[in-house]
């Protein structure tokens, strides 16, 4: 059960959700599936954490929700990005890139 390294890096779940939703409106499982697929299985999302993150982002107005029929005819809650969310995503992406390149540089010199 304890596959190492499948937890989402702490503090990045919001960013991953926002990024995923920036492509198209999606329901919860869709987001989880997409993150898993795109990361090629490196990240597996805990449903509880995901739904909590949705509530939190919805509450601060970075995403909005709408109940719709999914393709397999189930009633599902679809989330989409708001303008505020897009702004946050841009900021977080820039920040993340800056940090990652810094860490990469550091690791390289150490190595």
């Amino acid at each position, binding site marked *: 059960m304890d596959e190492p390294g499948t937890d989402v890096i702490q503090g990045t779940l919001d960013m991953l959700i926002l990024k995923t939703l920036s492509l198209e409106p999606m*329901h*919860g*499982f*869709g987001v*989880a*599936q997409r993150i898993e697929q795109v990361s090629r299985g490196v990240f597996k999302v805990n*449903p*509880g*954490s995901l*739904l*909590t993150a949705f*509530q*939190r982002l919805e*509450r*601060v*107005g970075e995403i909005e929700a709408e109940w719709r029929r*999914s393709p*397999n005819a*189930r*009633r*599902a*809650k679809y989330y989409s990005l708001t303008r505020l969310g897009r702004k946050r995503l841009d900021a977080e992406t820039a920040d993340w890139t800056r940090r990652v390149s810094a860490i990469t540089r550091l690791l390289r010199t150490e190595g």
Partner: protein
Amino acid sequence: MRLWTQFTRGIRSLFRREAEGALLDEEAAHYLAELTSDLESKGLRPDEARRTARMRMGSLAAVREQVRDSFWESAVAGFASECRQALRRIGRSPGFAATAVTMLALGIGGTAALFAVIESVLLRPLPYPEPERLVALVHSAPGVNLDRLPMSQSFYFTYSEEARVFEALALWNGNRATVTGDLEAEEVPTLFVTHEFLRTLRVRPEVGRDFLASDGNPGAEPTVLLSDGYWRQQFGASNSVLGRRLTVNGRPHEVIGVLPRGFEFLDEKISLVIPMRPRREDVRLIGFGEGGIARLKPGVTLSKANADMARCIAFAPAKFPLNRGFAANTFADARIAPKARQLQDELVGDAGQTLFALLGAAVVLLLIACANVANLLLVRADGRQRELAVRAALGAGWGRLARELLLEAAFFGLMGGAVGVSLCAIALPMLKTSGLVSLPRVSEISMSAGTLGWMLAVSCVASVLLGTIPVLRYARPRMDNASGRWTTEPKERRHAHHALVVAQVGLATVLLIGAGLLIRTLESLRNVDPGFSRPETVQAVRISVPSSHVAEQLKVLQLYEAVRGRFESIGGVETVSITTSAPMQGRANRPVFVEGQDSGPGRVPPVRHERSVSPGFADSIGSRMVAGRDFLWDEMRNGPPRVIVSENLAREVWGGPREAIGRRIRPSLQHGWSEVIGVIADLRDEGLRNEAPKIVYWPLQDRSGERNELPRNVDLLIRSPRAGSEFFVQELRMALREIDPNVPLANIRTLESIHRKALARAELSMALLAIASAVALLLAFAGIYGVIAYSVSKRLREIGIRLALGSQPHEVVRVFLQRGVTLSLLGAGLGVVAAAGATRLIQSLLFEVGAMDLAAYAVALCGLAVAATLASWLPARRAAAVNPIESLRAE
């Protein structure tokens, strides 16, 4: 901004918790369904897919809790549900809840009521702007043995001209005045003041104008201000009243204004305010009979004011001539010193001590109630011991369990407080209107925000006191106790119960002893011989005959005689006498020179109490002549001047009543000598707690001076078994109208009501403390009973084994009885020690009773012993009735 949305969304979701929960469940279910179909599409069998999905996702409920717990409102909701549970638990045992709430409500309501009274009477400032700068101008004169000397007109002018510390000052004199004219002759309460009076208080008339300096001019037309009440009652609140003339004491006064509604001065309701108009050139140095108030300049302290007043007093003899007939150094020998005090202190007097003593009693009562309820809660938590242990074992944190126990206690505390508030709100107006309470500012008593705050604080403190004990004992239950199968009682648990009982008994002892001391005080006060007898059969009424109505003194005397004769002819009347003041209501003082003793120049004789009386005074109040004889009516007009003195005066001056007869005295060097013809038994004229003053009884018409002196305001004392009845007073009024329709009957009361007033405060504090201590005894009784009964019920098995092994039932009873009595003795011992300290605080309330009065202690301890024995014996008796077989079988 983000915080704000967090907050508003949180609040919204709090109120839509059910609906949001359902949506969340639906979303999670959808997630699960999608996951399942995804797994199926990857080739798993449907049942396998469902199982794997469930395993990955975990329980839906857990997901929901995880989501919810990450937001702040879930803590609120959790707290709310804990509150609901606590309330439900309380609701399941209504009898227990009612008992606990009642005990706490009594305690909290009691302290709140007393706090409200203290707040209104002592702490709330007087209803004038910047009241802390208002002072009463009082003096002392140690040289003539007077520790309280009011103001004189000479000092009023001296201070006005010389003092540097006062912004304004004024004289006042509360009195009554007769209003005649279109209206029926009526005596109304009137305040005579100098023109700066209202300005000193900073009160402005509601209608019209304040007095000006010109209104104090003796030559100007007299003016008058009406009270709001009098204005409404007599003039229908009409504005046209300004400029009208009101005939007061026979002279027309121009109405210049109306006072604000509710205006009171020193607790007196007033109808009229009239300017005093002293003529400066007529003022003599001595004549201390006026009240004085002043407003200090900002920043001036009382001691500075007193120092400045002392400086001014030195100027007075140069400014005003000494009264004729006084020795030249009278003034200097009197050694007059200022003793200004806050106006509020002057008004409240010594009521504070009584009130704080009573508040102390109420707090003690509250503590006893808390101890009792804490014991109940302890027993209750005991019953839940198993449940608490199981929940702790299943993972409930001790914080949660502690919160639960505290919440329950807090609800009791708050409910007790709420019921207490209602009790207090009902009781206060009743207290106010009952007339039982003789307190200053009683009409101002009300519940304020401060009182409510006090209630809340007291309730919270009580809750914490209540809750802490069970929490300390049970919040961390140990597994070894969880079986709940004790044969005996664990020792450490008994200690908590016992400590609470000891505390209760100790506190109750303090109250009982306090009540005992006050009962003894009241008893001693009742046993004091006031100097009059059968006061319920003495009717007192006041009449006044202003000089504008009857100018000639002779006619006034004739009027008095006619009234006396007419009253005596009314059925049932035994004696009628006329005096300047009814017993216990006189305040006049004058020096008394004794022939052959201290009439030498340069010596000032001591000042004595005095009153003028007609023949029959001693008879009418039920006193007696100790020596000599009474005046005769004939002597009011003819013959040499004569006088009567009190027994203690005769003893002090001449060594005995008989020795006094035939001696001569006079009130000043200007007066002729009057011969003592009789000696009256002592009269407690200054209240029951004070020694009887030495009194000189001048004849109603005193002819020893240059002019005949005849008082124009007098009390008629009518002894009759019908005194106090409405009909009787009506008859008196009709009789008076026959003689002179323009003289009203006023200030109608019986001598008994005057006597009762003197006892009123002692009666009130005694009654309240007696009630408090009775309740305390009852609570202590319940406390002892409860603990012993509980102990018996817990030890049934042990008792069964003892009995089965051959113990005698009475031995078993003795064990429990002994425990109850030992605890009570311990409590009583501590209580006596505490009482020895606490009763010193009420020393000033006591009268002829020491704080260590043996009788009070003995009675209190006996009462306690009986209660404690009974409270232990009743439940202990049950122990003897235990059936060994049943108790061992029972599980």
